[in-house]
């Protein structure tokens, strides 16, 4: 697209580059801008604006009414806290459990290793929707020993939203790919010096794994934060409900779209914040994945 311009015309070239970047950015941002702008508009105006470019603009009667009403309609804070809790704990445990497994697959020799790895990779292609009911039947009968003694089911808890989601093929796969690219000499040297496997894992490998940790954490965060079907069927008490189940509170016979937009805007904020915090490490992470060891 630059070829039509004289190469010496730097100013113009630069302007065109930015123009292209901005036009493309508009494609990605406008629908989200529609969401945010709509959250400040009364329903009648919101719905009328969808037929024109006003949908993207902060025009008309702007109000925080939708936000106020959303808080009245549903315990928004509770839902966000539940989601952040479940998501945070799962991400943390997933990083440990999956990296440990990947470490074993890449650096250690043990009987059954290749078979187990193939099986884990095959689970990548099982869509969750298709195993939800069998899984429900399993967790409903699982016992648990907790602080309050023995329980006979996992339903209506945080753990039922966390434990089944800790390990998954994709996260293991990401760690395996990354570990393969780390220089093997480091591990060999540590072995020769008599370091234990745990020491090598914790002192040598994990300090180098920052980038892949960021990638895996973001993917897992998105997956967990957007959970809907699973909490819907295993949680019957409001106190454990996450944000996407909470969204259902807003689909009444008389749907208030402004409130929905306000709710959607609010629940998107934590994800955006999490992403921005990790963005640097994330981009660096994937960058280093291409390096072949």
């Amino acid at each position, binding site marked *: 697209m630059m070829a039509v311009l004289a190469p010496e015309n730097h100013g113009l070239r*630069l302007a065109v*580059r930015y123009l292209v*970047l901005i036009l*493309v*950015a508009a*494609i*990605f*941002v406008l*629908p*989200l801008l*529609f969401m945010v702008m709509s959250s400040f508009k009364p329903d009648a105006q919101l719905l009328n604006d*969808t*037929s024109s470019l006003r*949908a993207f603009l902060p025009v008309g009667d702007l109000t925080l009414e939708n936000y106020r009403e959303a808080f009245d309609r549903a315990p928004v804070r509770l839902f966000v806290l539940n989601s952040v809790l479940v998501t945070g704990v799962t991400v943390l445990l997933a990083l440990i*459990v*999956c990296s440990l497994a990947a470490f*074993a697959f*890449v650096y*250690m*020799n*043990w*009987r059954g290793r290749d078979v*187990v790895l193939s099986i884990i990779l095959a689970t*990548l*292609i*099982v*869509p969750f*929707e*298709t*195993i939800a*009911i*069998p899984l429900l039947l*399993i967790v409903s009968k699982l016992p648990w020993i907790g602080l309050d003694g023995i329980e006979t089911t996992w339903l209506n808890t945080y753990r039922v939203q966390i434990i089944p*989601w800790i*390990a998954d093929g*994709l996260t293991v796969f990401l760690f395996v790919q990354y*570990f*393969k690219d780390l220089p*093997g000499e480091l*591990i*060999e040297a540590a*072995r020769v010096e008599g370091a234990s*496997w745990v020491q090598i894992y914790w002192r040598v490998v994990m300090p180098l794994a920052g980038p892949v940790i960021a990638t895996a954490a973001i993917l897992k965060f*998105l997956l967990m934060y*957007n959970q809907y079907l699973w909490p819907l069927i295993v949680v019957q008490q409001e106190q454990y409900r996450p944000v996407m189940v909470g969204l259902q509170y807003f689909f009444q016979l008389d749907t208030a779209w402004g409130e929905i937009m306000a709710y*959607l805007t609010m629940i*998107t904020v934590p*994800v955006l914040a999490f*992403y*921005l915090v990790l*963005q640097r490490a*994330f*981009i660096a992470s*994937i*960058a*280093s*994945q*291409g*390096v*072949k060891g």
Partner: protein
Amino acid sequence: MASKLTQSNRAGWAFALPGFGLIAAFIILPFFFAFGLSLTDQRLVSPNATQFVGLENYRDMLGLGLVTLEPERDEAGEIVRDEDGLPQYPRVRTITRSDEYPQYSGMGEWFSWSSGDTVKVVLASDVVFWRALANTLLFVLIVAPVQAACALGLALLINQRLRGINVFRALYFMPVVVSIVVVSLLWRFIYDGRDGLLNSMLGFLSFGAFEGHDWLGDPATALPAIMAMSIWQAVGFHMVIWLAGLQTISPTLYEAADIEGASKWQRFRYVTWPGLRNTAVLILIVITMQAFALFAQIDVMTNGGPLDSTQTLVFQAVERGYGRQDISGGSTISVVLFLLVLTISLIQRWLTRERK
């Protein structure tokens, strides 16, 4: 990479066991459970006893037949024609509901074509399943390469040294962090046929020449519309992966290419592309997996319609298992989907294997 000389069976299992154990308990076990269900007549809700039915569910779903319809003839043997001169054919149902043809019992018409005066009709015992299968494959075949290519284009676009390029990176990535359910809700307003945002923008850009189109209401555009939205939502993620790949290509290779006097295209073809090989494999695998699992968009936007043009396998698995309370039928789709994707990924792996 692994130390070839030392066996560490106990430590190896100890490290892998938490992960493998959880996957076994919460993915593999329920999957086998689902496989078991697919061999029974289990309903989601029913007081009737469950019976083992073997492969009947698979037969009922996969069964295909081909019949040839002869045009109807009057007593003189002349073909009966309607006002437009088109020959008249017997209704397919006279065959599928007839005791004469037990092999076609319960089947329906999937598609048909004319050959001469006769019409060939492909019958399927589960027409919606076959349509869902065809749509899913079409979705994967189009979305995987297009999304990968768009992502690469974006990666090339933002792999420039410009002030503020990080801001654009973040903006392009934004849709990824928004839930697909939320995105689907928003895009229903965008695709609305009466006064949706897309129509009004196209009308604006064409100075009113564009009349408006009912994107999700037209069987010809519903699936493409969902494809476009899905690509829009996910492309930022793959862009970042490509970008990472681009940044690993050594600058000295480009310098060498410049010395040789390579054109822009040649630079891409002989330096950039070979350097992105591994990235390409990773991206293709991830996109393919995601595309096969297409569900939320359909559930929110079209419910499989209009006229089954957006039915997909996972949507059908859920619709049957929950909506129609046919949990064994839903499980059967899951198993078929698993085998299908497994086959495809084995082929993909074979095609992209590293030739020595």
